[in-house]
């Protein structure tokens, strides 16, 4: 049996002397012979090496299984092969098949009950050859030699696929050399058998017999022959295409053959992937840097593989700074997630995931003008990506897009803003003389756009004559002095109506050439204007009214203060102390109707009185003045208090407009310490004696101003030392929520509390008697010393 490990045979060179005895020719021939022999030897060695690799693999298996040494394993292989009647390679293949559970093994175990040993050997040898092979050419040769030739194929080509879907011939055996030369590169878009397999992503079988339907390598050579082009994949990616040619037309191949070819194609894919000279995988750092360098938003995806090496998802490896997540998540939360995790809808209608998968598999880039990306499944798309581009670069996928054109949005926004605020913009190029108006400005002027713009210098012709001075000033500042300016004027529209408008403009100056351009805006401010006018008018009116009423109030207050100062220097009589307090109502613009009085009469008697006119305002104040002074005058007669009130009642009755009033009137004789007093509808005074307070009797006495000639009861009380007598008006104690009697009791409590002096006592009253009716309060107090 022929063993591949036979010792190297000595080189046998047959020398032949040429017929004409030419030594040079003979030498050349000898050289050629030597080369041929050497090549044959290399060839044999190579083949041997492939097989040797397989046998070494089998030996390894036996070492592990039987726990024997390598030498023993070698002997085992030899012995077993002899016993089985197989070549060592065939036996080795069998051993490997039974141990490995890969596609090859499956191939052989599956349909074929008793797989022919040479198939297994062939495949395993080919595999071994591939594993040992350094380049794709060697791989192609190994495959053809070991696996395809026995099937009747005479040529094989292995193409590698590039990013742009072009095919490059990486290995070719069995074709004419110039055919190989011509077909070294197939551009994308050219339909060949191999590129068809690529674009349709399935194996292409050509029976042959026709006259070359598809242009392909060796098309002339194998015109009649059958051909198959199958995808060489590895790691889920299409690495290339394996093309096999038969010299003759072939019938449909049995499944075993089909599967063999598939398995071989996978081998090729693996070979392409691992070939040393190709930097198939661009370092991921480069891809990240590329994404960062892009001005548009970009995302880098890398494939996620399952155990079998198939692509199940893509992971977001990087997103650049311009990237904005449609769902508004932080960039960091999207990077690192897989595409389907982050964007489940990518698997849906938009088919983004499928697109990415296809681009990754084929390397063919994908472009779309617009892609609608729904953020959630039920809602209509919230984001539209424009100019979407998906490309495979190295091992990753780069997705870039342009978000909705920012400048287009801005323009739309701007024109809305102009329309809503009634602002029209203009630009005048002084060099070219070109004037540009926005459509809003035409509307402001009331001109159709066909009329053409009006130069700013002609503004006065479209304005009210009275505004020409202001416009001249404006133009001078702008055009002559070269400074921004604005002015308000009345614009005359074509229909003759005037609209209050404002124009603002700024010059564009060049240091050397001067005024280059003027640009600015007009704004219709008529609504504002008329509002202001109305407002001013109203304000004036209001001011007038306010002034009038303030004047009246001031007068009344002055009057009142003249009559009734809030404090009064206490009158000092030898044995008597007198104090008065007046607290005006809260609404101090409403004059009250309360009065107090304490005056020493010529007779030496003291007149004290308090009164309360019903109502407030001017009439109450004047009424109060009249009554107070009347009482003073009447008291000069020396009449008793009750008589005084009878007269006072008539005075009140004679006043206009039903003036009603209550009053207390008292005359105190310091000599006798007798106080005579009377009341007209008023609360009686309070007497504080020995720490106790009591109201004096409710003498008969009707409210003043009700009926004429009313009669009043006279009261008398002799005061003692330290007695305090207090007269007050009900504004001191009145409460809406309490009964008058309760309020009275409260008053008695307060006033009876001991105090340092009369002043303090009265102050305490003011402080603690909490009335809430916004009425004036008057207090007159006397203390006997």
């Amino acid at each position, binding site marked *: 049996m022929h063993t591949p490990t036979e010792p190297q045979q000595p080189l046998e060179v047959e020398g032949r002397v040429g017929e004409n005895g030419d030594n040079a020719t003979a030498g050349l021939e000898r050289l050629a012979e030597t080369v041929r022999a050497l090549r044959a030897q290399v060839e044999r060695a190579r083949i041997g090496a492939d097989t040797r690799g397989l046998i070494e693999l089998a030996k390894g298996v036996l070492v592990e299984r039987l726990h024997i040494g390598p030498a023993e394993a070698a002997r085992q292989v030899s012995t077993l092969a002899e016993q089985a009647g197989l070549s060592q390679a065939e036996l080795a293949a069998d051993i490997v098949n039974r141990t490995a559970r890969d596609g090859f093994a499956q191939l052989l175990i599956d349909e074929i009950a008793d797989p022919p040993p040479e198939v297994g050997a062939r495949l395993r040898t080919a595999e071994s050859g591939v594993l040992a092979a350094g380049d794709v050419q060697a791989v192609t040769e190994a495959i053809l030699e070991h696996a395809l030739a026995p099937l009747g194929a005479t040529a094989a080509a292995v193409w590698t696929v590039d990013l742009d879907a072009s095919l490059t011939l990486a290995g070719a055996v069995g074709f004419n050399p110039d055919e190989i030369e011509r077909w070294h590169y197939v551009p994308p878009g050219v339909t060949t058998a191999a590129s068809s397999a690529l674009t349709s992503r399935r194996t292409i079988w050509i029976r042959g017999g026709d006259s070359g339907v598809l242009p392909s390598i060796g098309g002339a050579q194998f015109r009649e022959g059958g051909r198959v082009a199958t995808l060489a994949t590895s790691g889920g990616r299409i690495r290339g295409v394996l093309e096999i040619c038969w010299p003759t037309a072939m019938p449909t191949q049995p499944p075993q053959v089909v599967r063999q070819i598939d398995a071989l194609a996978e081998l090729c894919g693996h070979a392409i992937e691992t070939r040393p000279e190709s930097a198939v995988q661009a370092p991921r750092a480069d891809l990240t840097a590329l994404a960062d360098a892009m001005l548009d938003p970009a995302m880098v995806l890398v494939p996620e593989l399952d155990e079998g090496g198939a692509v199940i998802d893509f992971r977001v490896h990087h997103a650049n700074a311009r990237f904005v997540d449609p769902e508004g998540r932080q960039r960091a939360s999207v990077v690192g997630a897989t595409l389907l995790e982050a964007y489940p809808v990518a698997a849906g209608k938009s088919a983004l995931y499928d697109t990415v998968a296809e681009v990754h598999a084929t390397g063919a880039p994908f472009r779309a003008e617009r892609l609608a990306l729904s953020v959630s499944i039920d809602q209509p798309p919230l984001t539209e990506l424009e100019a979407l581009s998906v490309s495979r670069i190295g091992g990753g996928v780069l997705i870039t897009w342009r978000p909705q054109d920012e400048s287009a949005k801005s323009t739309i926004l701007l024109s809305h803003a102009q329309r809503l605020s009634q602002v029209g913009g203009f630009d005048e190029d002084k060099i070219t003389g070109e004037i540009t108006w926005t459509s809003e400005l035409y509307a402001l002027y009331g001109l159709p756009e066909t009329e053409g713009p009006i130069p700013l210098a002609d503004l006065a012709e479209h304005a009210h004559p009275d505004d020409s001075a202001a416009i001249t000033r404006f133009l001078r500042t702008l055009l002559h002095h070269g400074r921004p300016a604005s002015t308000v004027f009345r614009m005359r529209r074509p229909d003759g109506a005037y609209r209050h408008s404002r124009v603002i403009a700024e010059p564009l100056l060049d240091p050397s050439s001067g005024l280059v351009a003027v640009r600015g805006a007009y704004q219709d401010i008529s609504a504002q204007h008329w509002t202001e006018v109305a407002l001013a008018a109203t304000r004036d009116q209001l001011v007038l009214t306010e002034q009038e009423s303030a004047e009246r109030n001031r007068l009344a207050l002055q009057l009142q203060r003249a009559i009734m100062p809030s404090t009064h220097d206490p009158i000092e009589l030898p044995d008597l102390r007198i104090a008065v307090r007046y607290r005006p109502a809260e609404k101090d613009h409403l004059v009250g109707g309360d009065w107090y009085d304490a005056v020493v009469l010529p007779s030496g008697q003291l007149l004290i009185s308090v009164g*309360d006119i*019903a*109502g*407030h305002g001017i009439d109450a104040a004047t009424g109060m003045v009249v009554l107070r002074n009347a009482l003073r005058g009447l008291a000069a007669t020396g009449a008793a208090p009750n008589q005084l009130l009878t007269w006072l009642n008539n005075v009140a009755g004679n006043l206009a407009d*039903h003036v*009603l009033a*209550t009053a207390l009137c008292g005359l105190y004789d310091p000599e006798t310490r007798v106080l005579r007093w009377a009341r007209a*509808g*008023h*609360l009686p005074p309070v007497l504080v004696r020995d720490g106790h307070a009591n109201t004096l009797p*409710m003498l*008969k*006495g*009707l*409210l003043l101003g*009700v*009926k004429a000639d009313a009669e009043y009861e006279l009261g008398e009380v002799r005061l003692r030392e330290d007695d305090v007598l207090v007269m007050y008006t009900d504004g001191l104690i*009145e409460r*809406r*929520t309490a*009964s*008058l*009697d309760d309020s009275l009791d409260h008053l008695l409590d307060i006033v009876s509390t001991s105090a340092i002096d009369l002043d303090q006592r009265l102050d305490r009253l003011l402080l603690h008697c909490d009335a809430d*009716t916004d*009425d004036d309060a008057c207090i007159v107090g006397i203390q006997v010393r």
Partner: protein
Amino acid sequence: MTKAPMNTTTERAGDSVLVRVVGEVDLATAAELKGVLAAAADLGDARVLVADLSDVTFFGSAGLTVLLTAHERGCETGVPFVVVPGVDSSARRILEITEMLEVLTTADSVDSAIS
């Protein structure tokens, strides 16, 4: 919810007109009361006009003028104006102190006023 300080109702009770006053009669509401009483007096075919003040919680001096006016009108028109001050009301106390009770025509209750 701000409650109006004063509420009045005017109704006919047979050949009488009855005005019930609830709440506070002060400077602010006195004018309103004046109008109500004037309107009530204008309702024709009334034998007597009654003002029920038993539910008045505060009666200020401004109210006195109103009552006096109504009283004098009653004397002129011959349709008496009767005031029901109530037993313990604020109105009664004021009317007592000012002795208006003796000036006005009063009744202890609405029924007695009507009859």
